[in-house]
């Protein structure tokens, strides 16, 4: 009738919400004290419980070496992608269920220059919020016509484009009744290994935003907004698909920057 005594009390959404609010308040105080804005998550962001044992406690060691190998990086080419990789709705015999969606944008470096001919990789859940992954035991249906993996190379202007279906929200076990807002995972390369980025793109107006510790780990409001794509009606196709725009800016120095800075 009641929970067994050895069961720890469930970690509630309201407890996580309170932790998220406390982290935001602490960040607002830092800004008020004149510290610069922080664009990336703190790796030890406690509301995301899996981070607790998986973040370094020692400060990172700054490498300021113009000869560092990390100022160059891996390259990819036409042998590494196929034409159908960028259309996640055409990788099976039939079409997947869900809202057909296009996502497009440009990959830029922090000086605003396009990142050309580089690899963009995406992966996502299906329209029901289920990943084609053995360890996803969310009891939502798999879609035999959707795997949820895509790749493309950026164009001369840094542009990428994917056709997919809008992923569903899905439950996870960070705390009791935890749900992740719909998102697409992105993996990006720049011209230097220092610019490597793995991140997640969100869809505008999702009511789960304030409750999600992964999105909220970006405590800077405007940085968080940069993870949310914009619905762009000019990218929608009549009786076919809805269009979203999401530009990506890679952090980190690059070799070209070093040359120009000399």
């Amino acid at each position: 009738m009641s929970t067994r005594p050895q069961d720890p009390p469930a970690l509630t959404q309201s407890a996580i919400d309170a932790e998220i609010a406390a982290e935001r308040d602490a960040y607002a105080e830092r800004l008020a004290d004149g510290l610069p804005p922080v664009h990336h998550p703190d790796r030890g962001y406690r509301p995301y419980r899996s981070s607790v044992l998986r973040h370094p406690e020692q400060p990172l060691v700054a490498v300021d070496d113009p000869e560092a190998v990390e100022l160059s990086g891996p390259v990819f080419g036409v042998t590494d992608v196929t034409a159908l990789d960028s259309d996640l709705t055409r990788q099976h015999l039939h079409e997947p269920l869900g809202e057909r969606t296009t996502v497009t944008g440009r990959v830029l470096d922090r000086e605003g220059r396009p990142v050309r001919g580089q690899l963009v990789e995406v992966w996502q859940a299906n329209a029901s919020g289920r990943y084609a992954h053995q360890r996803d035991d969310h009891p939502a249906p798999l879609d035999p016509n959707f795997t949820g993996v895509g790749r493309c190379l950026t164009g001369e202007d840094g542009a990428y484009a994917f056709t997919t279906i809008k992923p569903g929200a899905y439950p996870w076990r960070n705390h009791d009744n935890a749900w992740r807002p719909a998102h697409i995972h992105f993996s990006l390369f720049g011209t230097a290994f220092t610019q490597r980025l793995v991140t997640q793109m969100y869809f505008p107006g999702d009511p789960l935003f304030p409750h999600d510790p992964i999105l909220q780990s970006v405590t800077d409001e405007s940085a968080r907004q940069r993870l949310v794509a914009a619905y762009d009606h000019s990218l929608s196709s009549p009786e076919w698909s809805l269009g979203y725009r999401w530009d990506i800016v890679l952090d980190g120095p690059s070799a070209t920057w070093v040359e120009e800075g000399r």
Partner: protein
Amino acid sequence: MTVRRPTPSQTVGPFYGYALPFPEGETPAAAHHPDAVTVHGNVHDGAGAPVPDALLEFWQPGPDGSRTGAPGSMRRSPTDAGFLGRNGTDFTGFARVATDADGHFAVRTLPPGGVPYLSVVVFARGLLHHLHTRVYLPRALAEAPRDALLDSLAEERRRTLLADEEGERRYRFDVRLQSDGTHEETVFLAFE
């Protein structure tokens, strides 16, 4: 020069396994290459437990010191879009390997030319922003003993970047995301 504000990082999450790893990702060295070296180890968390859902990437110069890399790490079939494996001649300089259920990884590559280290990026579920580190190979280091990064570190910190030579062409390198109280946390790097 307009400085753009960067797109924030987010965790790679638990479900990258069907998207990011690819066949031969862990073997930049061509099969049976006589100079190939194996670098292997475990990724551990702050409780000392193995991390079975980490993804490591390696980047390095070719044996000739070239830093341009080459395409073809994840070469594909135009016929059925499957993976063909590397072409057996070009050295791409790039490796990607996921840890297994024991938190173990292994890569087989060629010794880097001109520097004594391999550059590493670590991703994992629970890690909100990837980490950079380096694997220093003792043989290469013996030839060029001065290294600005290693020289700047206290001995116990420095040691976390040095691979152990276990045998002929075989090196051990463990990654500790956080100290477990017994083992030193790996040195992770920032590039501003």
